[in-house]
Every structure is written in structure tokens, then in C-alpha cells.
């Protein structure tokens, strides 16, 4: 068997270097798209958060103008403030309890068709929003495109409020002598409250 002629080591080394794969920095749903989608999916990934955010829209629709749009304006700002606290490492006590209580209380307010003064309604919603934001802030994963993550996060939150407002508009559906729309809206409050009680039980267990 004939042996092959020797190849200079430097040539082998050079060829190996030339063929070596470079680190691939692109990923599916990487930097940009991944950041947006990750932020967008965060608020809708937990039913406790979804319940409360939809409930804000429902309650706003029940209270009517100007609460119908002031509550969804206040919630994202206060939630982002909570997110800021969470990202900064500021501790808040009983966050999970606060989140569960937000669904219970908002559900009860809708069920009872309770009309608080506007300032009080803003305080209630703003206070609970801080708990939701803090929970999200502590769970946010680094390595994403921060700006796109934040945009996705806020848009998803706003859309959840819009869903609540959309559902809440059934109140204008005056059917039958017992005002079916108004009753149906109050009925959604019972669903929110029941969900909140479940999460409250889970938080305490």
C-alpha cells in the first residue's frame, strides 16, 4: 500500500481554520422578533393576570365615561411602574396574594355593579397594577431586545383591556324587561371573582 505524500501542518491548520464554522448569532425568534413576541406573550401567559386585566376593561365599561378609558390608561402606567420596581430588585410583600385579590375584588365590584368615585377606582386599579407589574418585572428574562420586549408587553396588556371593554359593551344590550346586557356583564364579574378565589386559594395553600 502506497503512503500519501506528507502535507505541511501549516496548510492543514489554515484549511481547518478556513472551514471552521463561525458562531451563529441569529436564532429563530431571536433578538428582534423574539423580543417582541416574548414581551407580548408574557401578560397573556398567566390566567391570573389575564383575568385581572380583562376585569379592568369590564369594570371600566360598567362605570362608563370617563372611567372606561381612564382605567386602561392608568393600569399600564402603574403596571410598568411595578415592572420597574421588579426589574430594579425592589421587594414587594405578598405579590401573588395581591394578584389573586385583584381578580377577587375587581370581580366583586363588577358583580355588585359598585360605582366607586373615579379617584377611588383609579387608586384600586393602580394599586393592583403595581402587583401585576412587579410579578412580571421579576420574571422578565434578560437577553431580549429590551425595547421590543417592552413594546410587546404593553401592547398585550392594552389589548387585554380592550377585550374587557369589548365584552363590557354588552351592557348596552337592553334586552327584555330585566336588562339582559347589564345582568350578563355582572355575570362576567362572578366568573372573574371565582377565578380570583381559585388563585387566592392557590396562593395561600
Amino acid at each position, binding site marked *: 500500500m502506497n503512503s500519501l505524500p506528507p502535507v505541511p501542518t501549516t496548510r492543514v491548520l489554515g484549511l481547518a481554520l478556513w472551514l471552521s464554522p463561525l458562531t451563529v448569532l441569529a436564532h429563530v425568534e431571536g433578538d428582534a422578533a423574539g423580543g417582541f413576541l416574548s414581551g407580548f406573550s408574557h401578560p397573556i401567559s398567566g390566567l391570573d393576570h389575564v383575568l385581572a386585566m380583562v376585569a379592568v376593561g369590564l369594570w371600566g365599561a360598567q362605570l362608563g365615561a370617563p372611567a372606561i378609558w381612564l382605567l386602561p390608561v392608568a393600569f399600564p402606567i402603574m403596571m410598568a411602574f411595578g*415592572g420597574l420596581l421588579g*426589574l430594579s430588585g425592589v421587594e414587594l410583600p405578598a405579590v401573588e396574594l395581591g394578584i389573586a385579590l385583584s381578580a377577587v375584588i375587581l370581580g366583586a365590584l363588577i358583580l355588585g355593579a359598585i360605582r366607586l368615585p373615579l379617584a377611588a377606582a383609579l387608586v384600586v386599579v393602580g394599586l393592583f397594577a403595581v402587583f401585576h407589574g412587579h410579578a412580571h418585572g421579576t420574571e422578565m428574562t434578560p*437577553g431580549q431586545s429590551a425595547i421590543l420586549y417592552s413594546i410587546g408587553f404593553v401592547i398585550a396588556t392594552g389589548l387585554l383591556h380592550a377585550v374587557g371593554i369589548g365584552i363590557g359593551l354588552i351592557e348596552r344590550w337592553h334586552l327584555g324587561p330585566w336588562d339582559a346586557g347589564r345582568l350578563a356583564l355582572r355575570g362576567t364579574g362572578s366568573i372573574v371573582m371565582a377565578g380570583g378565589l381559585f388563585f387566592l386559594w392557590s396562593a395561600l395553600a
Partner: protein
Amino acid sequence: MPVLPLALVATLPVPAHAHLVNSGLGPFYNGTLHLLLSPGDLLAVLAVSLLAGQSGKAAARWAAIALPVAWGGAALAGLALGMAAGLGSVQVALLILLGVLVAAGIQLPPAVMGSLAAATGLVHGLENAAAFAAGDSGPVAVAGAAAAVLVLTLLITASAVSLRAAWTRIALRVGGSWIAAIGMLMLGWLLQGTG
């Protein structure tokens, strides 16, 4: 001399770290595309334009002049002086301020609106100077980006000024609250060191 290995090594592909996206249409459009693909800069243009539109026609005219001129001027100055601005926290603070002003339905006097637009343009222009320095046609690319700022500002302010229906004015203020919320989250990321 190991010429072949050296030649092979010289042809090694290396990751490109250029900041300007190549549009294939020349440096002017590279600059335009750079702006259109920078969500932080776009959000600032949106925030200034919404506030200017909310503040009325006179304020909108001031903002439409001040924002692109300050943006382009600052980018050119940063390019000439080789500045690496590092103004991320100022950008975020401005974004929160602009968002809160829109959400609160504040109408600014034209001179104040113009100054705020100029400050925003200045900060964002300086922050982007390093990106334009990566190419060899920096000033032309800056012109492309500033032109994009001008067109976007004109379009958004014109739309915002012409809003009449109550629900559209409310939608504008909701948009402002979203911008402020995004700014606050960005501040959180910055404080965490990952923004």
C-alpha cells in the same frame, strides 16, 4: 513561507459589525432604513409627534421643524467629533415625559413644544452618530435618517392635529400611556443593566 495557509486565513469570513443596514439603494436610503428599523428612535418620533399634534397646529409646525433639524444636526456633530454619546437613560427619561404629557392630555405652547422636540432630536441624533460613523458615507446617511424623521413627524402630527372625534382623542391619550409605560419598563431594564 506558508503562503497558502496565510492566504486561506486572510479569506476567513468574519462577523460584520456594521450598524447601518444595507438597503442596496445607497447611503441615503441606508440612513432612512436605519431609522425605520430602530424601534427606540421611532417611538421617540411617535411620542413627539403625538404630543405636538395634541398641542395644536402652531406647536406641530415647530416640532416638525425642530425635531428633524436637531436630529440631523446632532448626528452630524457627533459624527464630526467622533462622539459615543451613551445617552440611553436620557432617551428613556424623555420618552416617559413625552408619554405622560400625551396621556395627561397636556397642550404645550409652541415654543415649549419646539424646545422639547429639539431636545429629543438632539439626544437621539447624538446617540445614533456612532452608527453612521461605521459607514464611509456618514453625512449622506444622516441626511437620509433626518429626512425619514421629517416625513414621519409631518405625517403623524398632521394626523394627530386633524383628530376631531372624542374617541380618537382618547385613543391618542391611551397611546401616550402606552409610550410612558414602555419608557418605564425600559428604565427598569437600564437599571438592571440589560437595557
